[in-house]
Structure formats: structure tokens, C-alpha cells
């Protein structure tokens, strides 16, 4: 970590201990109590798992294999290299998974944008997805930060509100589904944190010269905060270790900046119908501050909205001659690149806006050759020689 004013402040405390009255309670007690009373089914962690440290010291289990990928509508819709990189890393590390069609969006983006839904509907959508995962035997892994945060809210509401449970149970009965809540709600960035040393072992590039700033997703660590990963070895336990812990393990140059806690400006409603706010906040409070204080080569984050807001907002800001121009991607794409993933066939960087080519060059990746390879594959598909690219094509 560079010796900025922020890192000096952070280093003054070896480890940050939170006051007992600020600690949230462990939800597991209530969860298992309701299970014992026959109110719901708890989908248990099975097979190999890693225990990771959370904000108030409660260990959280992260299952390593046989995961049910709860995809993100924004990632799949307009940042497809995000999802593809998560799958690719899991395949490279040899962990089995299930990519379901029996999955809907959590619909929380819409809920936080428009409020055109209600508590029971949101809980029923969450539990329908959880039941679908349970029926397959695979354990849910949540790709989106907002889905993850919202599902934790839903879990809390269901555990403490019997009337809501009853309402949702009736809806699920119409669908022929049980009321299932997983033992842990796990975000993909927690899985990456859990396997960070395995990723490090498979790196084919040295990223020690790559300067990184991290933007943590609000809905990851502010909503139902007790679940988020905090590690004494990352920012001395004062900031969430999601993303940063992986970057640190990979040996990249993790740099700090003063507006780490600020949101990205996504705004849910604003990104769609009032983007002047999003653009202003993203560039003035995040990108420009990062650039002035840390001068990173890349911004890494771990949520759909954050990649979108931070990446897409920079184009218009350039017209105003603002100090912008840092490529933005998920840490999944960053880790995949380090492990040798194709920048276009896997990481799909051509869907991103801010110029990523100088970054690839600094990483030692020949993007011109890679783009030529991508175009050759595109021509094969256009000629009708093949309808789709497959994992075998990508790994060839």
C-alpha cells in the first residue's frame, strides 16, 4: 500500500476493535431455532469450505464447490465479461458449478429505483430462487452486490416477522416450493477471497507494478453489515477486505484514497433516468479523488452498478476536461486476466467504455493480437461454421 495520508492514518491502529454495543447479533441462532420448530429448511454448507472473518468476528463459511450461480441482470446484460470471468476462474480451479435457467433477478434494482414492489413480493422472489437452488443440491453463490445485500435484508425480515413468513409461505405453496434459507448468504467476491491463494498460485503475469484502487460496493458492506468480510491483515481490519484482500494476495500495488467509503453514484433510479447525478458523483467524488491521491492503473470493484457507474461516467466527464481516464472492471476480470484469461473471449473488455488498452499493455498482454483472435472467431460464426463459442473454444 502506498504511503498516502490515508494509509498513515490507517496504520496508527494495528487492529480496529469495535465497541460491543455496535456489534450485530449472529442471525444463525434464530435461523436454526426456526428450523428446529419446523418453520423453514436451512440449506447447509456441504463439502469443502473456508471460514472467513467478518466485521464482528463471527466466522462465515464459504463453500468452495458445487455452487448455484445466482447471476446478476446488469452483469449479464451489459458487462458479460464479469459473469464469464467468475465461471472461468471456477472452471480453472476445478470447482463444479450449476448455471441455472430456473433463476430470476432478485428484482432489487427495480425495488430500490422505483419502489414498485413490496416486502412480501421481494421476499417471495428471494425464496423462490433459494428453493430452486436447494432443489438442485447446489449452494447459492450471489453474483450481484445488491442481490446479496437485499437478500440479507429479506432474511432478517423473515427471521423476525412471523406474519411475513406466513404470507410468503402461502405464495411458495402455490408454487409447490418449500421455505428455504441458506446457512450463509455468500457473495462471489467472498468466494474469490476464500480461494485467493489458489488464484495467486495460478497467476501467469506479475502484477506487482499494477496500481489498483478498490471501490467497495455499498450494498455489500453497508446493508446488514455484520456479514461482510473484514480481515485484520487488510486495512488493519478497518475497511472491508472484499476485493482488497484478493488484490493484496495477488501482489498488485493496492493504493488507498480518502473517499473509499463513498458510494459510486449509481442511484438505481438515477443511472436510468437522472444520470447527471450519477456522472457528477462518480467522477468528482471517486475517479478524480482516486486519480489525485493514488494515480491507479485500474479501479476494481465487485458489483454491477459500481462497474457501470464508474466506467460509463468517464466518457462525458472527458468532454468537461475533468481529470478522469481510469479503466474499471470487477476483481473477477482482473484475477482472470492474471491467470491468463483471454481479454475479449473471457473478460469481454470490449463492452467497457474507459480505455483499458494501456492497462493491458502494462500487464504484458498483447491486446492487438487478442483482438485479432476474437475477430477471427467472429468471422467463423458469421460464416456459419459454428453457431456459438464454447468453453472449449475459449480455452483453446
Amino acid at each position, binding site marked *: 500500500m502506498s504511503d498516502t495520508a490515508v494509509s498513515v492514518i490507517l496504520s496508527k491502529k494495528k487492529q480496529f476493535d469495535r465497541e460491543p454495543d455496535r456489534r450485530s447479533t449472529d442471525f444463525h441462532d434464530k435461523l436454526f431455532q426456526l428450523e428446529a420448530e419446523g418453520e423453514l429448511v436451512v440449506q447447509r454448507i456441504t463439502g469443502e469450505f473456508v471460514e472467513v472473518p467478518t466485521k464482528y468476528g463471527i466466522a462465515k463459511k464459504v463453500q468452495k464447490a458445487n455452487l448455484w450461480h445466482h447471476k446478476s*441482470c446488469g452483469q*449479464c*446484460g*451489459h458487462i458479460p465479461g464479469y*459473469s464469464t470471468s467468475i465461471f472461468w476462474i471456477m472452471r480453472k480451479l476445478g470447482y463444479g458449478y450449476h*448455471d441455472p*435457467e*430456473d433463476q*430470476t*433477478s432478485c*428484482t432489487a*434494482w*427495480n425495488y430500490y429505483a*422505483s*419502489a*414498485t*414492489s*413490496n*416486502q*412480501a*413480493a421481494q421476499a*417471495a422472489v428471494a425464496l*423462490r430462487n433459494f428453493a430452486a437452488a436447494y432443489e438442485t443440491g447446489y449452494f447459492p453463490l450471489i453474483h450481484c452486490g445488491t442481490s446479496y*445485500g437485499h437478500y440479507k435484508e429479506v432474511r432478517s*425480515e423473515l427471521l423476525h*416477522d412471523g*406474519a*411475513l413468513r406466513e*404470507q410468503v409461505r*402461502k*405464495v411458495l405453496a*402455490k*408454487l409447490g416450493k418449500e421455505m428455504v434459507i441458506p446457512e450463509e448468504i455468500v457473495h462471489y467476491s467472498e468466494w474469490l477471497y476464500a480461494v485467493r491463494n489458489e488464484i495467486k498460485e495460478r497467476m501467469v503475469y506479475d502484477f506487482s507494478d499494477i496500481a489498483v484502487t478498490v471501490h467497495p460496493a*455499498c*450494498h455489500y458492506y*453497508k*446493508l446488514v*453489515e455484520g456479514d461482510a468480510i473484514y480481515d485484520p491483515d487488510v486495512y488493519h481490519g478497518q475497511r472491508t477486505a472484499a476485493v482488497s484482500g484478493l488484490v493484496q494476495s495477488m501482489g498488485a500495488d493496492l493504493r488507498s484514497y480518502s473517499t473509499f*467509503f463513498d458510494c459510486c*453514484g449509481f*442511484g438505481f*433510479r438515477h443511472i*436510468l433516468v437522472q444520470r447527471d*447525478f450519477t*456522472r457528477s*458523483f462518480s467522477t468528482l467524488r471517486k475517479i478524480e479523488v482516486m486519480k489525485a491521491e493514488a494515480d491507479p492503473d485500474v479501479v476494481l470493484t465487485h458489483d454491477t452498478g459500481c462497474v457501470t457507474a464508474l466506467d*460509463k461516467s468517464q*466518457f*462525458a466527464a472527458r468532454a468537461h476536461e475533468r481529470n478522469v481516464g481510469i479503466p474499471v472492471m470487477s476483481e473477477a476480470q482482473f484475477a482472470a486476466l492474471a491467470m491468463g484469461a483471454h481479454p475479449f*473471449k*473471457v473478460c469481454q473488455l*470490449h*463492452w*467497457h*467504455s474507459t480505455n483499458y488498452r494501456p492497462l493491458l499493455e502494462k500487464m504484458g498482454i498483447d491486446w492487438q493480437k487478442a483482438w485479432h483472435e*476474437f475477430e477471427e*472467431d467472429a468471422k467463423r*460464426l458469421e460464416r456459419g461454421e459454428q453457431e*456459438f*463459442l464454447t468453453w472449449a473454444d475459449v480455452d483453446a
Partner: protein
Amino acid sequence: MPAATLDPHLKRDRVAGHEEFPVELKERLIGKVMDDPRFPEYLYGCYECGICVAACPSARFYDFSPRRIAQAASRRDVELMFQQMQEDIWECSQCFSCLRCPRGNNPGGVVTIMREVAVKEGLHTAKEALAGYSRIIYKIMSTGTQVSPDMLQPDAFPDWGPEVKDVSENLDLWRRMLPPETLHTTATGWKVADRTLVELYVIWLETGALDMIAQVDKGIHMILEELMEEKLEEEGIEV
């Protein structure tokens, strides 16, 4: 309740522009907000420390304050809360940075509830705030995924740079080049099974979520209702 209209920090006189609404209506709507089962968990009183404002992105670019939201709700200031339902709540980013509150307040959560009531009651300002948003509601409720690749059109996102045009022009081909089989779609984020969609429709109908759409956009509501009823009939499901 006497209106304390001299507070210089208000956007404007708290009842200005809202005098036409009877106090009974205001009382009823604020009553609905406070009757929400989540409300007691979202508010524990306010120190007036302003930490929530310092953390709030919307407070930097709008005349918006999560502290005012918490304070108005704490003292059940019906006039001010009604004004906030009409003017403030749609400025909130729903990032929940305000959960940094040392008292454990959740002003963003209070805003969520206020928005829900504003939509259910069909407030004109809610319709205004969601103008242009109906296509998103249609997409999420009808397909089960919110953002589809075919929404990336240059005329809709001119501020996102020339890459949007590249994606739009090559959409079908580039989607077929994605290795996960579920991602070859263009009208949805991923391939959602028919049965899954029907189950989602049952949820919208059974929980009253579909009814809420009628308050925002009657046309979209009608289209969604017809679509869902037809699908459910095909599957032999009665709601």
C-alpha cells in the same frame, strides 16, 4: 399540529404547494409509513450529529438530507413528512451509506417505505419521478431480468461513449460468442425457463405487486396483466 414554517433550512415553506391536500390525507399516508413493520427497526431517535449527511451522496448534489428524514419521522411531523414524500424521497440514492448512523437509524430504509406508500397511493410526484422508467418495470416484471443487452442503444445512452454503438451493432454475434450457454440471449440478461417466469408472475399477482403498477402506468399495467393471465392460463394455474 402547528406548522413550524420558520426553519431556514427547509427547501421552502413546508406546506407551500401542498395546501390543497387535506390534513386527513396527510395523516393517513404518514400513518401507513409508520405502520409498516420495518419502520420501528429503522428509527431509534436522532442525535442530530449529521454523520448520515456527510456520508450521503445525494446530499452533495441535491437539497436532500437524510438527517431531516430521520428527524421528521422521529417527531412524526406530518406536514414535513408529506412534503418529503412529494419532493425529497426520489433524490435518495438508496445506497444506505446513512446506515453509518451511530444510533442505528436507517433513513434510507424510511425513504424506501415512503416511496412504497407514494407509489401505492398514486401520488402525482411518484408518477413524475418514474416517468421514462416504465420500460424497465415492464422488462423486470415480464422477463425476470431487469437489464437486457438490447437496451444498450446509442440513443438511450449517448453519454456512455461510442462503445455502446459497437455493442448495439454487433449484439447478436457478440452474445453468441459468450461461452456460458445461458448468456446467448439479447432480450433478457440470461435464459430464464418458462416455468420460472410463470412462478414469478404468481408472485407478482399474489402479493399485490402488479396492482402497484396500475398507479404508476395504467397502460403498462394492462399489458402486463394480459400477458400474465395468458401464461398462467396456459399452465393451468389459478390465482
